[in-house]
């Protein structure tokens, strides 16, 4: 059977089907009022929330490093320069990532509209989803960075406090077998936590959007073959 032979059957069926599903103006108003957010709108909302949370966290860690910790430890020796440098680079990394992320996200959303050509729609959607993925990993990176910096700072401060408590030299306490064992266990624990968090985030993102991104990319590939 040829496709053109089915045109009349289609015409009969599609009119009958459309009539069966016909909605009145009130029902259309209702659907508009009760409409749920589309995927892109949900992503936009999540990105803004995520951005706000990360900004607040950065502020908090900045205040912690430069206000709360110096106040709490004013009786002790000042934090070593290398730890301060590590903290500054961490904050610089976070601020730089924010700026990069925000610029790439704005440029991806600027052009998005379902009334564009399909290839433009697909490109915008794929860019938005990748930006969303980057935010996911940026959040993860920041969390891991903060964890690592706090861990190192905690270790150093712990050794220093112990030395003050025992009235000995920092080097002596730091090189005792018990302390070395504790540091190694701490590092191993940190690595396990970092790996688990990374795997969980990656799995979660792929589970939610992996197939969808593949579907969009396949459609774009089909269009590219056309052109």
């Amino acid at each position, binding site marked *: *059977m*040829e*496709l053109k032979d*089915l*045109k009349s*059957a*289609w*015409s*009969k*069926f*599609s*009119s*009958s*089907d*459309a*009539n*069966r*599903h*016909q*909605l*009145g*103006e009130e029902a*259309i*108003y209702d*659907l*508009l009022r009760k*409409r*749920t957010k*589309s*995927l892109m709108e949900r992503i936009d909302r999540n990105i803004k929330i995520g951005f706000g949370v990360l900004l607040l966290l950065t502020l908090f860690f900045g205040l912690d490093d430069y206000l709360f910790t110096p106040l709490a430890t004013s009786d002790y020796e000042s934090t070593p320069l290398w730890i301060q440098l590590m903290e500054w680079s961490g904050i610089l990394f976070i601020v730089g990532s924010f700026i990069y992320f925000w610029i790439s996200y704005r440029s991806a959303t600027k052009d998005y*509209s*379902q*009334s*564009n*050509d*399909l*290839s*433009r*729609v*697909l490109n915008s*959607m794929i860019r938005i989803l990748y930006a969303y993925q980057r935010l996911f990993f940026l959040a993860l990176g920041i969390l891991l960075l903060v964890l690592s910096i706090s861990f190192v700072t905690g270790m150093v401060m712990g050794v220093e406090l112990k030395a003050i408590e025992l009235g000995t030299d920092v080097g002596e306490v730091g090189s005792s077998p018990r302390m070395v064992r504790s540091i190694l266990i701490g590092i191993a624990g940190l690595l396990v936590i970092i790996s688990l968090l990374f795997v969980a985030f990656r799995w979660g993102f792929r*589970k939610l959007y992996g*197939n*969808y991104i593949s579907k*969009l990319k*396949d*459609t774009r590939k*089909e*269009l590219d073959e*056309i*052109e």
Partner: protein
Amino acid sequence: MEKEFVQIISQNQGIIHKVCSIYCDSEEDRRDLFQEILAQLWKSFPSFRNEAKFTTWMYRVALNTAITSFKKDKRKPDQSNLEIENFQLAVEEYDHETEEQIKLLYKAIANLSGIEKSIVLLYLENKKYEEIAEITGITQNYVRVKMNRIKKKLKKYMDS
């Protein structure tokens, strides 16, 4: 603006129903897609300029939305078991032969990609290649080439 939008959509809602019927396997999916298309049309309505016909623009938004729609992972339904009521004609128009042809057509169309479905729908709606190209954003020549391939593909499915 909302009143104008609702009136114009109400008059042309057949387009959305046709797109939904081609892309959805179940009534639930169909309701979701209808709402999603309606939302996208409303969102894009302020940017609609009379450069294109309203129905052309409506087809474009509806098809783009259907092709890029996001469905949570679920098992692909068995195409031999698509919901029967989807293919039933109204009682007063009942025609057994038409119904059988439509079931066959749907089973064949279910095997096509999103872009191919959009081209078939527009072809079945008697759109000229020029208009199909305008709606889908691909060149007329390629619409012709693609249409020939789709016809062969569908014939193969329907004959087997």
